[in-house]
C-alpha cells in the first residue's frame, strides 16, 4: 500500500517528462553514422595531437628535436627538462604566482559578477537597462586601449613587477556580470526575495541567504571559466611584469624569446604551464562545456 503510493506519483511525474524527449530525439537528433564518427575522430586527433606532441618533445633532447623525422614517441628526458624549466626558466615561481593571481581574480570576478548580476536581474532601479547595455558594450573595448596609461601609473606607484598590478584591472568582468544576470533571471524566483523582504531582511541578508544559494551552480561555472581566462591572460602581464616575478604566460614568453635556447626545455615549460588547466578540464570538463553552452544560448 505504502510502496504503491510512493511509486505511483513518481511514474506519473517521470513519464511525461521523458516521453517528449524521446520523440524529439527520434524526429531530429539522428544517430550518427560511421562517417560522422570517422570525421569526429579526425577532429579529435587535430585537437589533441599538438598537446600530446608537447609532452613527447618535452621528453626528448634539443639535438633530437633538430633532426628529422621528428620524434613520435616519448623519450627519457621528461623529468630533467621539467626540472630545468621549473628552476631555471622561472616556471616554479610563475606557477605559484599564477595560482595566486588567477585565484584572486576568480574570487573577485565571481563575487562582483554575482552581486551585479543579481541587481540587474531582480532589483528595480533607475537606468538599470541602460547600465546593463553599457556593461555589455564594454566587451567591445580592446585591452590595448588601456595599457599605456596603466603602465605609466603603475610605474609611478612603484607597482611594476608586483602581482597586484595584474590582479586589480581584471577583478571584474562584463561577461561575468551578464552571465550571472542571465542565470539569475530564471533561477532565482522573485517570490523568495519578496518573502525574505517581508521577514525584514536587509539586502545583504537577501544576498547571503537567498541569492548566493540560488546562484551557486552558475558561480562555480563562472569561476572555472574565469580561472582559465586569468591563467592564460597575456598582453597586460607581459607589459606589467618581468622575469623576476613572472606569471606562467610571462615565463613562457621569456622562454619563447630565447631565454633558454633549448626546444625540449621550452616544451617542458609549455607542458607545465598547461597541465593545471588540463587537469581542471579532466575533472570539470562537463561543467566547463555546460557553462560555455549556457552562456551562448542566452548571450
Amino acid at each position, binding site marked *: 500500500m505504502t510502496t504503491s503510493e510512493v511509486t505511483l506519483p513518481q511514474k506519473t511525474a517521470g513519464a511525461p517528462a521523458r516521453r517528449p524527449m524521446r520523440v*524529439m*530525439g527520434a524526429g*531530429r*537528433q*539522428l544517430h*550518427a553514422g560511421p562517417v560522422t564518427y570517422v570525421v*569526429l575522430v579526425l*577532429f579529435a586527433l587535430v*585537437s*589533441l595531437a*599538438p598537446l600530446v*606532441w608537447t609532452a613527447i*618533445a618535452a621528453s626528448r633532447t634539443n639535438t633530437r628535436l633538430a633532426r*628529422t623525422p621528428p620524434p613520435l614517441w616519448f623519450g627519457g628526458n621528461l623529468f630533467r627538462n621539467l626540472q630545468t624549466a621549473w628552476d631555471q626558466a622561472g616556471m616554479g615561481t610563475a606557477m605559484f604566482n599564477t595560482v595566486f593571481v588567477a585565484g584572486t581574480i576568480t574570487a573577485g570576478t565571481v563575487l*562582483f*559578477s554575482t*552581486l*551585479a548580476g543579481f*541587481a540587474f536581474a531582480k*532589483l*528595480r532601479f533607475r537606468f538599470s537597462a541602460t*547600465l546593463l547595455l553599457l*556593461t555589455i558594450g*564594454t566587451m*567591445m*573595448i580592446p585591452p*590595448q*586601449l*588601456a595599457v*599605456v596609461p*596603466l*603602465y*605609466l601609473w603603475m610605474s609611478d606607484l612603484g607597482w611594476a613587477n608586483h602581482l597586484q598590478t595584474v590582479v586589480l584591472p581584471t*577583478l*571584474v568582468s*562584463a561577461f561575468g*556580470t551578464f552571465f550571472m544576470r542571465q542565470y539569475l533571471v530564471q533561477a532565482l524566483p522573485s517570490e523568495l526575495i519578496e518573502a525574505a523582504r*517581508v*521577514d*525584514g531582511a536587509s*539586502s545583504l541578508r537577501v544576498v547571503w541567504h537567498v541569492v548566493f544559494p540560488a546562484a551557486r551552480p552558475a558561480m562555480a561555472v563562472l569561476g572555472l571559466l574565469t580561472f582559465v581566462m586569468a591563467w592564460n591572460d*597575456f*598582453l597586460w602581464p607581459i*607589459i606589467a611584469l618581468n622575469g623576476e616575478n613572472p606569471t606562467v*604566460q610571462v615565463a*613562457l614568453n621569456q622562454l*619563447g*624569446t630565447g631565454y633558454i635556447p633549448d626546444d625540449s626545455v*621550452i616544451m617542458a615549460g*609549455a607542458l607545465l*604551464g*598547461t597541465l593545471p*588547466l*588540463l587537469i581542471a578540464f579532466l575533472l570539470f*570538463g*562537463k561543467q*566547463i562545456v555546460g557553462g*560555455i553552452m549556457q552562456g*551562448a*544560448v542566452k548571450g
Partner: protein
Amino acid sequence: MTGSKQALTHPASSAGTAPGDQPGAARRARGRGRPAPGGSSWRSRLYRWDMKASPYAFISPFFVIFGAFSLVPLLYTAWYSLHHVQLSSLDQQTWAGLENYKNLFSSDFFWNALRNTFSIGLISTVPQLLAALWLAHMLNYRLRGSTVWRVVMLTPYATSVAAATLVFTLLFAPDSGMINWLLGLVGADPVNWRESDWGSQLAVSSIVIWRWTGYNALIYLAAMQAVPADLYESAAIDGANRWQQFRSVTIPMLRPTILFTVVVSTIGATQLFGEPLLFGGVSGTKGGSEHQYQTLGLYMYDQGWIVGNLGKASAIAWSMFLILLIIAAINLLVSRWLRTTHDHQ
C-alpha cells in the same frame, strides 16, 4: 514587529486595510512615525534607504573598477596619443598635436600591419567558423559519449596562446618540423613557414583556428539544440533532405548566433598579438624579417615598449579602436540588410 514596519513603509496601504478608512489615518500613521527618535522609524528609513541604494552598491564594484582601469585609461590613451611620450623620459611629456597620427598614417609599417591584421583575421576566422559549424552539426547527432567528444574538442581552449604558439612554432619549423615532414611524406615540397608571406600568415592563423574552433562549435551546438524540433519535422514532410534541412532550417535559425561569433572573432582578430609575437621568436615584435606577419597589436607593442615611443603606441591603439568601431558598424548594417532581405522573401 514586522507588521509595524510594513505599516510604516507603506502607510497608504496599511491605511487601506484599516477599518477606519480615512485619509486622516494615513496621515496620523505617517505623523506618528516621523518625530519618534530612533526605534522603528529609524529602521524604516534605513530599510527604505537600503532598498534604494543597494542596487547601485551591488553594481558599483564593476563600474568603479572598470572605470578606473579601463575607461579612464582609454581617455588618457587618447590624451597621450596627442603627446610626445618616450619610455626613456617619462616625466617629459610635450604636446604633439596630431603629429603621432600623421607619422603613423605616412608609415608603411602601419599600413603593412593593418593589411596583415586584415588578412590574418580573414584566414583565421572564416575557416574557423565554417569548421565550427560543421563540427557542431556532427556533435548535434546522437553520439556515444557525447560529453567526452565535447570536452576533447574544447581542450585547445585550455592551452594558452603562449603555450600553443611555442608548440606550433616547433611544428612549423622549416627544417625539422612535423608539418614539413608530413608534407614530404605525401610528396609535397616543404614550405618556408617562417619567411614566406602567405606561409607565415597561414601558420599564425592555424594557431588561432586550433584554439577557437571547438569553443565556437559549442556555441553553435547550443544554438542548434534550441531549434524547435517541429521545424525539422515539417521540413522533412516537405521532402527536404538532410542538407536542405541544414540550409533552410539550421542556418537561418542560427543567424543571430553566427553574427555573434563573427563579431567576437572580429574583435579577437583585430587585437591579435600573442601568436605573431611568439611565432617570431627572438625578434618577435617585428613580425618576421620582412614584417610579413606583424599585426597592429604587435606593431603597437613594438613601437611602445621596444622602440620606446608610447605616444605613437597610444595613437596605434586608438586607430585600432576606430577600425573596430567601423567594422562593428559595417557588421550591424550587413546584418540589418540580411534580415530585411530575408523578411521580404
